[in-house]
């Protein structure tokens, strides 16, 4: 519900396909968009992009996945965070 912050984008990222959906009012809206486009739910993770500090954040309650060893809002696995970050930076920074 923070989409009013124009310097902040809510995202859902498919780490397998390397795609993301953004701009929804909720991370769940972005997630639903990816699901509708054929992404598998277990590959989708919630994140935020904050352009002014060029920072990726990894905290959303859609990330609570007990069966994927992620019982918290934040993505706990550093390797998974790196995969999310790579997708986001490629899309927003073109790197």
């Amino acid at each position, binding site marked *: 519900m923070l989409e009013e912050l124009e310097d902040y984008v809510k995202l859902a990222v498919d780490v397998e396909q390397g795609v993301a959906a953004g701009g929804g009012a909720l991370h769940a809206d972005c997630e639903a968009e990816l699901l509708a486009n054929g992404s598998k739910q277990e590959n989708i993770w919630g994140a935020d992009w904050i352009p002014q500090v060029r920072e990726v954040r990894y905290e959303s309650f859609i990330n*609570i996945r007990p069966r994927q060893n992620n019982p918290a809002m934040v993505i706990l696995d550093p390797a998974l965070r790196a995969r999310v970050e790579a997708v986001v930076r490629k899309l927003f920074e073109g790197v």
Partner: protein
Amino acid sequence: MTNQVAIESDEIQAQRIRFMGLALPVRLGELAESLAFATVASDHPKYPEFLTRTLGVSIRLIDWTVAEVDPTVQSELAELRSHLAGWLRDTQAIGDDPAKRARVVAELREWSQKILDRSGLANYDNWQVEFDYPPGIRAAAEVFV
């Protein structure tokens, strides 16, 4: 004569309608998420402005939720709202004092976890309960149950 009635902008109204359509646990989850997000302000170049906006969002989410939770959670939300309003009045002073900034971040983190606990979303057992999730969340429940 100045109109003293607070008018809700179209954008805020759309947010409220979207938010009020969510199940209560999901609303509390959104609140927990917004509190965690407010900690971003600590490192943001436009600190007071960013903190003001993020705290404002959390306060609105509380206002849109508080009437429907049980009395215990209601008291906690009232206490949280009081903290947020205090920080909102004091954003410049908080921004100027690294120790205050750190304390606010720590308290936002604590409150975020507490509200997430109250939502039940972090409790694996509750993933077998049929919440009225948004589409994506509902799909998550189907995968993980």
